[in-house]
């Protein structure tokens, strides 16, 4: 590694991080500015991984370690980031924090909607007071713009900001967008395999996983899509968020679909939040229509599409309107694909592990695919300007309230085409379905009351 060993570069490399000794490309001395922590500690007879915070018994395994010569525990949970074992050491910088160069002035001439402006003020306040706030913004509200002024305030006060999101796709999309509006501050994008790993910057966009490598680093922590898999499922990722922020720091959550507990806390006034119930284009959210889809699974297994689902698809094909059709599982989707392809051979299906997922999404954007079948992988984060949306098997457990609200939120995104149609085909209404519809209606109602909708 051609990095010069000077105290300042060591500081630049290590500040705010918690790394395995092996990850540091410098020889490490026993400097008082460095702190070494044992990789795995024991708490109440349970192992605890100091990097990812995992404590579950089944996440640890033992191996005969050639380094320490003993039976050594190691953490399987964050193994893919380099093994943390009982005898490995994590290192952090405890010397003075290095100053970063650059200027955090915002260069953006756009206009915030009224809803966005209110949320933006709340973000600025949280940054200034080191407090917590939830920004509850509907799909298509324009969440990113809401952050701009708060980030500027932080950067101008020499604070370090992190935006953590569960998806690499979002990191890749967000980082250049921020770099554009903050041209004189360096934006670092962190995800598995990214090249930015060694640079120090005041504005970091990271996958939630990469936060494991930080410790007390950020003055402002912004957590995008708090409710999204895997963050809300993984207590270790919550640990990562807490570990990566400074003890005294601002914590800003963004989501369109807070979970039940959070919604309740908001109602009871226990959680500070700002709601943006209206989209930036001032049109209401499309309300899903529910329709009995019968035993659609059985029909598909028998090699036919339920009549109404088929009609829905045929109508879109005839009208030349693109659509997303969501399925609960890969296997039912793959069974259905050839049946849809009988209607039009260019119909495609996509799921998380699909190697050509990116190409298919691009083809959809280029309108080369008329209907795209998908698992919940496309439930959020993707925007096609003018589409209709259907859910096949909306009764399935994977379609939680938040999943359904997000899916419905794919329609009517652009100001030019604000009227997408949303249809939930179900084999029995679930609570989640009803809650999702009520959620959307409620948001529209609040948007209207605030005068943030034009109709």
């Amino acid at each position: 590694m051609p990095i010069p060993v000077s105290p300042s570069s060591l500081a630049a490399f290590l500040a705010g991080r918690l790394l395995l000794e092996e990850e540091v490309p410098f020889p490490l001395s026993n400097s008082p500015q460095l702190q070494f922590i044992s990789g795995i500690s024991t708490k109440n007879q349970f192992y605890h991984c100091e990097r990812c915070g995992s404590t579950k018994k089944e996440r640890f395994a033992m191996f005969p370690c050639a380094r320490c010569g003993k039976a050594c525990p190691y953490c399987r949970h964050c193994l893919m980031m380099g093994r943390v074992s009982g005898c490995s050491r994590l290192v952090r910088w405890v010397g003075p924090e290095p100053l970063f160069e650059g200027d955090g002035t915002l260069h953006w001439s756009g206009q915030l909607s009224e809803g966005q402006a209110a949320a933006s003020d709340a973000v600025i306040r949280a940054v200034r007071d080191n407090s917590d706030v939830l920004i509850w913004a509907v799909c298509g509200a324009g969440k990113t713009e809401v952050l701009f002024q708060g980030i500027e305030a932080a950067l101008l006060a020499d604070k370090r900001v992190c935006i953590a999101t569960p998806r690499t796709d979002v990191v890749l999309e967000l980082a250049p967008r921020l770099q554009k509006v903050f041209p004189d501050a360096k934006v670092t994008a962190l995800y598995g395999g990214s090249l930015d790993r060694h640079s120090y910057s005041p504005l970091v966009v990271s996958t939630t996983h990469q936060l494991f490598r930080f410790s007390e680093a950020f003055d402002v922590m912004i957590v995008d899509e708090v409710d999204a898999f895997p963050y809300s499922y993984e207590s270790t990722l919550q640990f990562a968020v807490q570990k990566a922020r400074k003890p005294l720091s601002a914590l800003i959550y963004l989501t369109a679909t807070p979970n039940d507990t959070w919604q309740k806390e908001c109602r009871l006034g226990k959680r500070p939040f700002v709601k943006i119930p209206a989209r930036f284009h001032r049109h209401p959210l499309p309300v899903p229509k529910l329709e009995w889809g019968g035993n659609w699974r059985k029909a598909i297994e028998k090699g036919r599409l339920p009549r109404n689902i088929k009609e829905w698809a045929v109508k879109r094909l005839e009208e030349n309107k693109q659509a997303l059709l969501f399925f609960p599982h890969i296997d039912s989707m793959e069974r259905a694909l050839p049946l849809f392809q009988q209607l039009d051979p260019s119909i495609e299906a996509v799921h998380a592990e699909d190697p050509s997922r990116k190409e298919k999404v691009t083809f959809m954007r280029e309108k080369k695919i008329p209907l795209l079948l998908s698992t919940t992988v496309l439930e959020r984060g993707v925007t096609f300007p003018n589409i209709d949306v259907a859910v096949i098997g909306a009764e399935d457990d994977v379609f939680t309230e938040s999943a359904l609200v997000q899916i419905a939120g794919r329609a009517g995104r652009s100001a030019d085409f604000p009227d997408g149609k949303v249809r939930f085909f179900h084999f029995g209404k679930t609570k989640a379905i009803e809650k999702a519809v009520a959620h959307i209606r409620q948001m529209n109602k609040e948007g209207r009351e605030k005068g943030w909708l034009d109709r």
Partner: protein
Amino acid sequence: MNGCLLCEEETNRSLNWRQFFLLEAPPALCLKCHSTFERITGEHCRTCSKPLAAIDPAFIADGICSDCLRWEEDLTFQGVLTGNSSLYSYNEAMKEFIARFKYRGDYVLARAFAEEIKEAVKKIPFDLVVAVPLSEERLYERGFNQAEALAKEAGLETADVFERIHSEKQSKKSRTERLQGPQVFRLKEKTVISNKKILIIDDIYTTGSTLRQAALLLKQAGAVEVRSLTLARGQGT
């Protein structure tokens, strides 16, 4: 509940009676993960286990692949390795598995195929098992020797008879480089080897160079026969 070593899903959904009475260990991998690996069945090279279906018939003579024939033409290596058995082809799933096991250091994965290794070993005549050693440097870096781990988890006791002196990574070298390279192993313990049939365990057979180097050394030290068993069989270059 037993989680699959790879995906953590429950593995023993269809628990049989032998498993219920703890006479048999529940499988280490779930069926779905296990089915991504490709067991070498059907016709394979009598010497090195390479599946013959993948080879142009012009390169097969008498059930032996051309690679092995070439080895047998080499006066130094003629007859040093009596035979190699490999359990799985080195497909994408196996590549990923070995990367996680060996390079990421997920030691417990050594258990994933332990039962199958145990079964395979029963068909091989041997007196002594050895694992291909790692250089000291590499051993420190990885924390364990993957070949040793495979043997140990399959219940095989290994003898510590030789060490690796050459530390450069084999996988980064071309076939010719490997073939012409100097001996990478050095004997530590000679006495236990003489007149023994030896079984060498390794994670993967790629060109067969490592195993033949080891076999050569063991033969020179008096072993009567050397065979090898590897989890995976790579394609070789």
